[in-house]
């Protein structure tokens, strides 16, 4: 019963995130909303697995916890550096190289 309540709370939090994604003034608000939405979706997937009695479906929550990171980096790189190919470092490879 409490799990369904937790799922409902998460759904409300996710809809607030959608509201922020839609009206967010700057692009960074939108990336933030997408990132936070992703983390909440991971939790919702975990809870759905338990509410519907098939907890073996945590793989989907697991995989999305990883993919969310990649999408956020791609969006951040796009808005800030306008290029998907540039390495995220300021020293040239010769000098730095180890990150």
């Amino acid at each position, binding site marked *: 019963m409490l799990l369904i309540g937790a799922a409902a709370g998460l759904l409300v939090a996710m809809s607030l995130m959608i509201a922020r994604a839609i009206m967010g003034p700057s692009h960074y608000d939108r990336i933030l909303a997408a990132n936070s939405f992703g983390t909440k979706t991971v939790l919702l997937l975990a809870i759905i697995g338990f509410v*519907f*009695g*098939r907890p*073996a*479906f945590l793989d989907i929550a697991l995989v999305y916890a990883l993919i969310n990171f990649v999408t956020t980096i791609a969006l951040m790189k796009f808005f800030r550096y306008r290029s998907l190919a540039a390495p995220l470092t300021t020293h040239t490879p010769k000098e730095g190289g180890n990150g």
Partner: protein
Amino acid sequence: MSAVLTHFNYVAVIVLMMGGLYILLSTGNLVRRMIGLAIFQTSTGLFYISLGKVSGGTAAITLDAVSAEGQALAARAGAEQVARYGVEGVIYSNPLPHVLILTAIVVGVATLAVGLAIAVRLREAYGTIETDEIQALDRVLTAAGQVEPAP
């Protein structure tokens, strides 16, 4: 009233489909059109999955009815339903639409990528990706003889 409850899924999927169609038609920008097309494709997938759902069913990964999960599911679905619709004591949703939609999603992304590649090449050739501007440029260029007229 019950018609709304039982057909809500189909109506919602069609609203999504029409949203995709509207986005597709209401703009000349090629990339935005492909977003509309992607929404349209995904909604057809949602429609198939809605058809395949069996209420009280679980995912089509067979589990034995005596396991804790199996008993919990059977208790929730009611013994009479399980007897009538269950396979070896567990009700499953229909797995066939899942197979179709699984490959449809991956092929959808592959074709989206090819479409976007064409849009990029159009941008490099014509300098714009608005369809009406491209057509206008085409007319100008075929008149000037730089581009052989379309067959």
